[in-house]
């Protein structure tokens, strides 16, 4: 079965529907599936729930889907970089479910591994624990968190072979593997599709079993906080 598609629009054809749950990889603007986000903007699909650590910035990443009002709800750990997000949230147009960052990552990993719930000590005694089952193990309290089972995962890797075996680069890996795992369907975009057999099987970060469709394209890879040090004189 062929996994390689020619464009984001081709790869997204037939998998989008209003009200769906999408898990997206990326941390800040690092390692985000920018081509697929553009494709979803163009599709016009709406009432989306998006599980993603952050919500992009106003004119890049998931911020584009907020600008077009295609997102109804975000599941995130930190959303401080996006003014339009804040405007929609404070006016009640956008629903927001805060998740501690590690809980969000584990909810994705668990969903992808067929685990519907798990107990964690993260958030015990805080607002995050409200309404959640508390269970004591060996004298310590833990709260029940649910696995995320997304309708669609959109992720970005550095390279993949034609079967979807993927390699990430530096900290652009972040949420991409757990996000990829938790979708019924996962579409991956990469900077380069390489011939099958050219990647060392021992260095694959995400095996192609998780990848249903694959596209290649040019990435802007915008830097959010460019920080440098002076060269020694």
């Amino acid at each position, binding site marked *: 079965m062929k996994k390689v598609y020619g464009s984001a629009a081709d790869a997204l054809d037939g998998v989008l529907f209003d009200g769906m749950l999408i898990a997206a990889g990326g*941390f*800040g*603007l*690092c*390692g985000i599936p920018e081509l697929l986000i553009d494709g979803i903007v163009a599709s016009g699909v709406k009432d989306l729930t998006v599980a993603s*650590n952050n919500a992009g910035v106003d004119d890049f990443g998931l911020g584009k889907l907020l600008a077009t009002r295609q997102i109804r709800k975000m599941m*995130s*750990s*930190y*959303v*401080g*970089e996006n003014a339009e997000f*804040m405007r929609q949230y404070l006016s009640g147009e956008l629903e927001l479910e*805060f998740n*501690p*960052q*590690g*809980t*969000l*990552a*584990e909810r*994705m*990993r668990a969903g992808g591994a067929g685990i519907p719930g798990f107990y*964690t*000590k*993260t*958030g*015990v*005694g*805080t*607002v*995050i624990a409200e309404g959640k089952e508390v269970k004591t193990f060996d004298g310590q309290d833990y709260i029940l968190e649910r696995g995320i089972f997304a309708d669609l995962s959109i992720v970005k890797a*550095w390279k993949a072979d034609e079967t979807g075996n993927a390699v*990430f*680069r*530096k*900290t*652009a*890996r*972040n*949420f*991409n*593997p*757990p996000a990829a795992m938790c979708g019924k369907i996962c579409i991956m975009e990469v900077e380069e599709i390489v011939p099958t057999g050219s990647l060392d099987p021992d260095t694959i*970060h995400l095996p192609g079993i998780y990848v249903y469709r694959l596209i290649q394209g040019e990435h802007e*890879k*915008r*830097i*959010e*906080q*460019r*920080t*440098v*040090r002076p*060269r020694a004189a």
Partner: protein
Amino acid sequence: MWDRNQMAARAAKELRDGMYVNLGIGIPTLVSNYIPDGMSVTLQSENGMLGMGPFPYEGEEDADLINAGKQTITELPHTAYFDSATSFGMIRGGKIAMAILGAMEVSEKGDLANWMIPGKLVKGMGGAMDLVAGVGRVVVVMDHANKHGESKVLKNCTLPLTGTGVVDLIITNMGVLEVVEGGLKLLELADGVTEADLRAATEATLV
């Protein structure tokens, strides 16, 4: 009183050779400038990296290499990268020996509030709740009072909590306090600060 750099230098004295440590944003980031020569400390960045290096030289920034504050950084010879679930697995699993974090309020029971002020813009907790719940030791570095002059070292936190009973050591511009049974124990006073000064500026019970 200590300034930001003196507080960071004092926090660095908590480091031990071979430690894996997570530094928060703000004053905690400065702690990396005071790691003693010859001591090997590995810094974790919770977005998926162990062995965080300094900021890059201009022109050498890499969009694929950032820290948890989204700043461009560099790698070191012993750097390793991993995904976010693995990163928080090592945090929640207690493999990170220590986190040094900023705070809005700390209580005498070691409760910590550092993510949300009701009525103000809420940006989210990021990885703070996972860190304080999971790491071996939590060291807070902050000013002793807020900008209105009110103590941030309290009997009970008033702001929404990041974690309960999680703080081990508090380093402020006035001194160093350890969370012990029944309250806080004064370990050290900053330059020019008397015990009476610190007691007057502290709402929490000192034992």
